[in-house]
Each structure stands twice: as C-alpha cells, then as structure tokens.
C-alpha cells in the first residue's frame, strides 16, 4: 500500500502542474488572439 500511495502522490503532483500549465497556455493563446483583434480595430 505504501508504494501505491507514493506513486499516486507523485502522479497527482505532476497532473496538477500539467493541468495548470495547460490552463496558462490556453489563456495565453486566447489573450493573444483577442489582443491582435482589438489592435486591428
């Protein structure tokens, strides 16, 4: 059981970071698109 908990904790740490990095990437892409559209106006 001990090793399973260790691996789950390790995986959770990675998943949370990857999800947050993806959130930042999506936000960056959306803002970039929106900025270029607004600056063209």
């Amino acid at each position, binding site marked *: 059981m001990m090793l399973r*908990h260790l691996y789950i*904790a390790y995986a959770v*740490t990675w998943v949370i*970071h990857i999800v947050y990095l993806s959130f930042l990437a999506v936000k960056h892409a959306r803002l*970039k698109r929106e*900025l270029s559209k607004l600056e063209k106006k």
Partner: protein
Amino acid sequence: MGDIQRIFYYHVPSAFAAFACFFVNLAASLAYLKTRSPRMDALALASAQVGVVFCTIVLITGPLWARPVWGIWWTWEDVRLTSTLLLWLIYVSYLLLRRFSHAGSMPVLAAVLAIFGSVDTGFVYMSIRWFRTHHPQPVLAGGPGSGLDPAMLHAFFINLIAFSAFGALLVWVRYLLERQQQRVEELHALAAVGGAR
C-alpha cells in the same frame, strides 16, 4: 517509514512554495492598497493563484502520506490540517471573488481579503509549534532536537530550490498574462467609448 517518506520531498517544498506565494500576495495587496497600481493587482492575483496550486498539492499529498503512517486520511482535530484547509478555502474564495465580481471596487475587496488570508498563513506556519498535533513537528527551524538526517538534507534542499524556482516562474508567467488581460480590458473600454460617440 520506508519509501512512503519520499512524499516529504515534494510535500514540504510545495508547502514552502505556497507560503512564499501567499506572502508575495500579501505584499502585493498592501502595495495595491497604497498605490492602486494595476501591476500590484496583477502580481497579487498571480501569486494567489499559484499559491492555491501548490496548496492543493499539499492537501492531496498530505492525506496520501498520512493514511499508511497514521492509519487515517484526515483528522479534524489536527490544527495544522484544518487550518491549511481553511487557508486553501480563503484563497479559493479570493480567486472566485476576482473571477465573478466585476464591480470597480473588486481589487480593493480582494486585497482586504488577502490580508485576512495572510493571518491564517502565519497561523498555519506556527500551528505545529503552538499545538501538539498528529502532524510532525517542524524539521527545519524547529528548535533543539529537530533537524534532518544529513543524507536527506541534500535531496531536500535541491527539491526546495527547484519547487521555489518553478513557483517563481509560474507567478511571473501568470503576472504577464494578467497584464495582457488588463490591456485587453483597457482596449475593450476604449472601443466602447469610441462606439458610444
């Protein structure tokens, strides 16, 4: 404890990174209340959001470590555990306030909430010094008898530096994105004024 002890190498650095983020959030919130600078508001939001990410890791890895060692996932009687959950809830409500309130006074309200949050940050840090808890006593700066085995110290400090550096990078990237967001909102406001004329 065996291999399960290795959770320590990312549980504690994550907690350290969360505390550092919440400290930056406090400093930026105080600076915002004094200067009303949008830069400070952006920094406050960025540090709170990254702090919540690290605090989430702490709250998940903690019970995963506790179950095989203490035989329980969680205990509400432990001051460190309960106050950490409260800290997470305070900063999640801070982020929700920022996300769903569009009132002009929102950054001021958020800054005031951040000051309340910082009181709990200090309490969480001191809780294992003030109360006898299930949670282990501090291994660093915990007074006589505390400390880490030298064999663990090296790996621990490498992780502490890595997590802190990664946290600082995330805060910086999120800060830049929030500055962009502020620029977008400015342009929208200008377009609305132009359209009304």
